[in-house]
């Protein structure tokens, strides 16, 4: 494997992803990430000199919506996605700023 993922990197990625990994899982993740990066490295074999980075596959631009209200009150349905609800709101674990 050309890409070796360090313990610090796994730790950091874990924090960013809000994941707590066991030692075993960390080892597995290191291997998986390494081989994913190896796979992506294949792209480096291509000469991309002067090629603009692409963020979209189709040559489409300016897809707009006019500023007209079309959605009504759909709270009942939306709240079906809430883990728990209270007073019409999504109830979540206490979160501080």
């Amino acid at each position, binding site marked *: 494997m050309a890409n070796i993922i360090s313990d610090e990197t796994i730790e950091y990625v874990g924090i960013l992803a809000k994941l707590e990994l066991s030692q075993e899982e960390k080892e597995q993740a290191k291997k998986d990430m390494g081989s994913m990066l190896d796979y992506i490295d294949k792209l480096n074999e291509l000469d991309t000199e002067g090629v603009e980075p692409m963020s*979209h596959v189709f040559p489409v631009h300016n897809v*707009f919506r006019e500023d007209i*209200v079309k*959605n009504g009150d759909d709270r009942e349905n939306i709240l079906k*996605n809430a883990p728990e609800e209270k007073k019409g709101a999504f109830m979540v674990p206490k979160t501080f700023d």
Partner: protein
Amino acid sequence: MKQYETVIGLEVHVELATKTKIFCACSTAFGGEVNTHTCPVCTGMPGSLPVLNKQVVEYAMAVGLATNCKITQNCRFDRKNYFYPDNPQNYQISQLYLPICRDGKVEIETESGKKYVRIHEIHMEEDAGKLIHDDWDDCSLVDYNRSGVPLIEIVSEPDMRSADEVIAYLEKLRTTIQYLGASDCKLNEGSMRADVNLSVREVGAEEFGTRTEMKNLNSFKAIARAIENERERQIDLIESGESVVQETRRWDDTKEYSYAMRSKEDAQDYRYFPEPDLVPVIISDEWLQEVKERQPEFKEEKKARYISELGIPEYDANIITGSKRLADLFEATTKLCNQPKKVSNWLMVENMRLLKENEMEPEDITFSPANLAKLIELVEGGTINSSVAKDVFEQIFKEDIDPEKYVEEKGLKMDNDEEGLRVTIEGIVAANTQSVEDYKNGKQKAIGFLVGQTMRATQGKANPGIINKILKEILDK
């Protein structure tokens, strides 16, 4: 003691006055019942796709043009990743690499003179939902009505050196954006929010000091106090040999101090990448031209025109054009009665007094130009005198009453009946011999008392010119 200079840059978020959110057709109306303006897009449901509101782009362009920015004609959106319950997608759609506006500047004026504040960039993004903390169940409640409301963030260069300059800059932005109709820019309601980046350095130093970012500033006064306080705090740290930590702080205006906020995550790494769900926005020269042509007359041009064409004093012109609401009222009323100076006087004196008494902003004015114009015509035509007019104005200010009907119904027409007034005045003179004597002994003021008594006797309706004439005739006999 060393001399320190304060260096300030601002990040200003402005909620745009669109009817719908930036990426979905939900209403942006303020104050709706919790979660009644939501849909799968603005609650971040998997599989939902954003579609950009064209009006957001146009407002952003208009603000950019008004602040002398270069418009990025090939502009894109990016994803800013972070976890927080007010952000249901776990990312915010914003702009990092190709923001819609760059390299602008606005001129500000303070007591220390005129200067430019440069604008680094303006980008479009979506607002987050609102978290309410619930002590009863020890949890947080999320309302996504605000999630997806369009924002522009205006990022200045660190060009300001005092609270005065910061406030002048914010007022300039606010007036400009209000003139464009792009937002109402109310700090107390959060439709304009300013984060203050501040550092201090010794006078003459080249390098910037370590800066902090101050949040939760809900009024110009709070901003001024927070700036003073943070400047002192940083100087104290430096003087005592400690160093300033780069952090985000939250201002508590009632306690007048700030504290370091717990950061949204320990690691501030937003891992921006191009937003794959939105296609690029290409702004053609034609589109740009269209928006340019629609730009309104801004404050400075308006003010100059009021002074030169309408003969309004500079001080008044400055205040009236300082609020879009006042300027609109002034113009609409003037159009109806063609008496710009009178309109300006009513707005500047009685209107300002009532605004102040009721702790209102010009934006809260509810009376119509038609009724103010009618009032001015009633005074100018001699139908009512000026003291009655003030009372009538108060009714117009409060309830937008029709002054013609009101004057008719309440019988407030000016009393021009010279014979009748003479009888009343003779009675008053006879009853106030002391004042008459004072007057004859050279006390000119005594006449004022007699005028006042006559006014009272006529319920304020007498023609003051006639009272004066008759009084003098009687007294100087």
